[in-house]
């Protein structure tokens, strides 16, 4: 178990490093879920939890400097709990949001205190014209991810289930079911966030097209994606060389 917990911790650390560098999106629940499932020997549950949590946070977009709820730590711990307590995807949904919010606080701490410390060290090296020093200060924060996210993931996976399981067993089935139902609705907040980020209100008929295609015509997710690209192409054509105005941001 020690080794498995360590592997989960390393994966979570990598997920955060990826988010802060390459952005291959291994940080997303849809990847982290199955990987943690693989480590803990249950890919099927991992896939299911990963997909469920992914849909909860699918459209959660925080523009500018706002820190979104953390998807990596939360999906890793949610997957681990689902597998190790044997309670499946429902318990994962109930765990994911609280952990994501703890992750959000940790991230805020990282950006306001820890990385500001590195920035000021970087300022010092910049004033000395020390190129290597500056690169080092720009890279070291990545290693801090192990302390901030890897360690909590390790503790949660190694000790969590034994500590948490008695309490989980005490929770009435209806509460878990209710939390799962609530988790199913959380996706709506993400979509609302995304809607809010689109300033051009006169484009809303496209929203209706998407809804009708999906709700009435039962076109699946991939089909909706293709429809979206088609709509953008048509819009581009019919707008022609019309002048676009920069929409005010934030």
């Amino acid at each position, binding site marked *: 178990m020690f080794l498995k917990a360590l592997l989960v911790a390393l994966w979570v650390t990598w997920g955060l490093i990826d988010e802060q560098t390459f952005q291959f999106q291994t940080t997303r629940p849809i990847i982290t879920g199955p990987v943690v499932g693989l480590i803990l020997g249950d890919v099927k549950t991992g896939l299911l939890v990963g997909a469920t949590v*992914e849909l909860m946070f699918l459209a959660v977009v925080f523009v500018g400097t706002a820190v979104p709820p953390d998807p990596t730590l939360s999906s890793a711990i949610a997957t681990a709990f689902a597998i190790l307590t044997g309670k499946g995807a429902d318990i994962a949904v109930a765990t994911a949001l609280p952990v994501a919010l703890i992750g959000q606080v940790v991230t805020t701490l990282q950006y306001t205190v820890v*990385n500001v410390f590195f920035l000021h060290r970087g300022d010092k090296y910049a004033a000395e014209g020390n190129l290597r020093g500056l690169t080092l200060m720009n890279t070291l924060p990545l290693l801090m991810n192990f302390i901030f996210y890897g360690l909590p993931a390790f503790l949660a996976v190694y000790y969590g289930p034994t500590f948490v399981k008695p309490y989980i067993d005490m929770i009435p089935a209806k509460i878990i079911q209710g939390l799962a139902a609530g988790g199913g609705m959380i996706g*709506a907040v993400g979509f609302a966030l995304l809607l809010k980020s689109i300033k051009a209100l006169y484009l809303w008929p496209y929203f209706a097209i998407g809804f009708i295609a999906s709700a009435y015509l039962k076109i699946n997710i991939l089909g909706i994606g293709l*429809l979206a690209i088609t709509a953008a192409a048509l819009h581009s054509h019919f707008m022609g060389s019309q002048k676009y105005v920069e929409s005010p941001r934030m």
Partner: protein
Amino acid sequence: MTDERSAERLTRKDLWSIFFRQIFIRSALNFERHQAMGFANAMIPVIRKYYKTPKERAEVLKRHMELFLTQPMVSAIPIGIAAAMEERYATKKDIDPESINAVKTALMGPLAALGDSLINGTARPILAGFAAALAMQGSIIGPIIFLIGMTIITLGIRYYGVFKGYEQGVRMVADLQKSGLIAKLTELAGVAALVVIGGFIPQVVNVKTVVAYKAGDTVIKLQETLDGLMPGVLPLGITLIMYYLMTRKKVSAVTLMFLLMVLGVIGVYLNILG
């Protein structure tokens, strides 16, 4: 003469080095000056080539330690442009170094809007939604396609940004602003995002009522009635209420998430939700 001049310019090797450093644009992201250190770090290949004394190097580094913040992938464009401008200033001294920061600042906002709507608002939700739909059926193919797709996107944008931005230099800024290209792409991304949001809501937002009532001898299930009139009306309604609370009542997203969880528990206890 020609030899000397070509030796003065940044080589492809230098640009690859900038590309690699661009990936670390937000590795030290902070709330004081955001991606400033990442930007300065990306300029190091240029600095190393043209400036040998610590004093000169410090001057350039200081210039790029000013506040900078945009979407990480598309930040490759201002980085490529800034590299071209720094090269020009170092070799010809015929531009004002202040203008380099002016260009960066001018591009920051529009590029952030474009990057956010293109990546986070369109490409990622489409690919992730598709992957999640496949994963729900127990298939590992979805996540793999998602990963491959996002890898191509993130590396492609960064490569294009650094190399094209350098090649076109300041001209690119003028072109982008004059033709309204950024605004146009942002609007098109908005169109695609709206279709995706509208289309995903009925399939991704999961809410069903179990309310049933008796009319004479037959039991009428409310969900079936709703599906007959307007399928997906509950997910749509909840999303629009969230949107209203968020924009008009300024309720935070996190509060709304908690609210929905509580609502879920209450709904199940009252036998409304299932």
